[in-house]
Each structure stands twice: as structure tokens, then as C-alpha cells.
């Protein structure tokens, strides 16, 4: 089977830099994905998501007026989100490491660190297809399970210190 066999896959690229968008488009085309939709910020991205119904999203983090974090949050939890489970790969520079945690908590599936390389891009696409993440719905979060490793033998429902409200405060 060749790359052309998967030309039905639709990708959405949300990136404010036209040159980076063109680069990502070229890479995805080279991988056989001919339907690549592009937009320049999260607001447009959400509209495109509703209209085009892509199979996965590559999004930048820093964009205006709506950045990748807010975009991801809306995709995951928006009342009118067309696909809250869609894989979202966020492209981040080393400059943005402090914000990666916020992006993870918004529901990003995978991170693609700059500088973008062919191997990095391929491995992230393979990851979202080959090892789809379980989703978690809990107070304050809906998105891919943020823990990649399960604790063997742990049967309890509580996984985080803040799974208890207000540190067991008396009410």
C-alpha cells in the first residue's frame, strides 16, 4: 500500500506564520495527505474544524487573537465542538516550555517541538494513529489521559492529590 492510499485523510493546520504553514503543507502533501486546510489562528481554526471536519489538527501555540491553548480548550469542551476527540498536535518552540503544561491541561494530544524535523513529524502522526490515548472526563478537565503510564495494580479512582475537594475541608 502506498502513501496515496490515505489521501482521504484531512488535516487542519492552525499557524500564524505563512512560511511555517507552507512548510507543514508541503510535508503533509509529501506524506500523501492532499486535503490540508489552513488558517491563521484558533478562532478561524475552530470555524474550519466545524466546516471541514478534519481527521487531525496541527496547531501552533502562540497566535492572535486566539492561541492554540484556547483553541484546544474549545475543541475539547465547546458545546458546539464537532469532534472533541480529534487528535491535536501542538507545535511548540523551546521558548514556550512554561506554557506546555497549560497546553497539556487544555487537552493537547501530542507535542511537536521545533525545530520541526521529518522524523519528529512522522513519529507524532504515527503516535496519534497507532496509540490513541484514552480520554478522561473529570472535574475541570476533558481530554486525553495526561498520564502515559498506568500504575499496575492500582485499583482506586483517585489519581491526583487534588482529586479531593479543598483538601478534605469541612463544609
Amino acid at each position: 500500500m502506498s502513501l496515496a492510499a490515505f489521501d482521504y485523510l484531512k488535516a487542519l493546520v492552525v499557524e500564524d506564520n505563512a512560511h511555517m504553514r507552507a512548510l507543514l503543507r508541503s510535508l503533509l502533501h509529501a506524506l500523501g495527505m492532499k486535503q490540508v486546510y489552513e488558517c491563521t489562528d484558533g478562532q478561524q481554526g475552530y470555524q474550519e474544524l466545524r466546516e471541514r471536519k478534519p481527521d487531525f489538527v496541527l496547531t501552533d501555540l502562540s497566535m492572535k487573537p486566539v492561541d492554540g491553548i484556547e483553541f484546544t480548550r474549545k475543541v475539547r469542551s465547546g458545546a458546539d465542538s464537532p469532534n472533541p476527540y480529534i487528535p491535536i498536535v501542538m507545535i511548540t518552540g523551546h521558548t514556550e516550555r512554561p506554557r506546555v503544561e497549560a497546553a497539556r491541561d487544555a487537552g493537547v494530544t501530542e507535542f511537536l517541538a521545533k525545530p520541526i524535523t521529518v522524523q519528529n513529524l512522522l513519529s507524532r502522526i504515527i503516535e496519534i494513529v497507532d496509540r490513541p490515548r484514552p480520554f478522561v472526563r473529570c472535574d475541570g478537565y476533558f481530554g486525553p489521559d495526561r498520564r502515559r503510564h498506568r500504575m499496575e495494580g492500582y485499583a482506586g479512582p483517585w489519581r491526583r492529590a487534588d482529586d479531593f475537594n479543598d483538601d478534605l475541608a469541612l463544609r
Partner: protein
Amino acid sequence: MFSRRRKAQFIDPKSYPAMLKPADVAQFVAVLRSETAARRAGRALLARSAQLRDVVLDYVASLEKAAQFGDWAETWLHAHEIRGLAETIGLVAAGRIANKLCLYLDAAAARSQAPDRTVVMLHVDAAARAARARDEATQLGDAILNELEALAAYKLGTSAEMAAE
């Protein structure tokens, strides 16, 4: 009375819409892992590299102009574009220096300080030299980067570690 949060609900990947039909996953992964895929994508990246290098050099020229005029907002914008693109096409030092310039301008703004012109110009000159000097870019850039970090920290009145954040 104690209160607890709602128990987390786990949703198995099999129970939500998948990107590909299960029968196609193995083939898709095999195709992406093939040499053909890597070669084709590598060619696509290479085909764009020369053009992107020109784009970065254009940004560098705009950065120099903005900095000379003391337009710090424009300076930040051009530095931001450089840090986003330069490393992808191998201009590692230029990308890192541009990043440090953005961080310095952010830090100065956060402290309601006017950016120090000398600090900005040193960053701009360093980024420009690193972008234009392909081969020695990384070595030259790294050495300059360390000096700039120390200078920026001194001007901001903080530790070098803070400036490096």
C-alpha cells in the same frame, strides 16, 4: 461533612471516533515508517529550505531596521518570526538569539522598563551574524548567547538564570 470530586471517567479509544478504520491502522503506520515516506518528506523539507533561509534573512533585515529606529514592538515581532523558523532550517544560533531578544523585551515590559538599546542592538547584531554565517553559526552564536544572557541579566537587575528562562 467531607466532599469529594466526581470520580474520573475513562473513555477507551475504541469507544470514540478513530482517525482511521482499525483495519487501516497497521498499513498506515507501515507506510509512514517506510523509507519512501521519510525520503519524500525529506525532499519536501529540503525544497523549502533555501526559500525559508531567504525568508529568515528578510526578517533579519527588518529586525535590524526596526531596532535602529527603536521600534521595540516591531523588533519583537521580527525576532518572534525568526525564532519560529530559523531552527527548522538549521539556523540554530540565530533562532536562539532571536528567542533571547524576545524574552529580554518581554522581561523589560513586565518590569515596566524601557529596553536598553545596547542590549537590543547586541542581540540584533548577533542574530544577524549567526543567520548570515552558516557554518560558524552555532559556535559563534552559543558564545554570544552566554554573553548576552549575562548582560541582559545585569541590566534587568536579576540573576543570569532568570534571564535565561
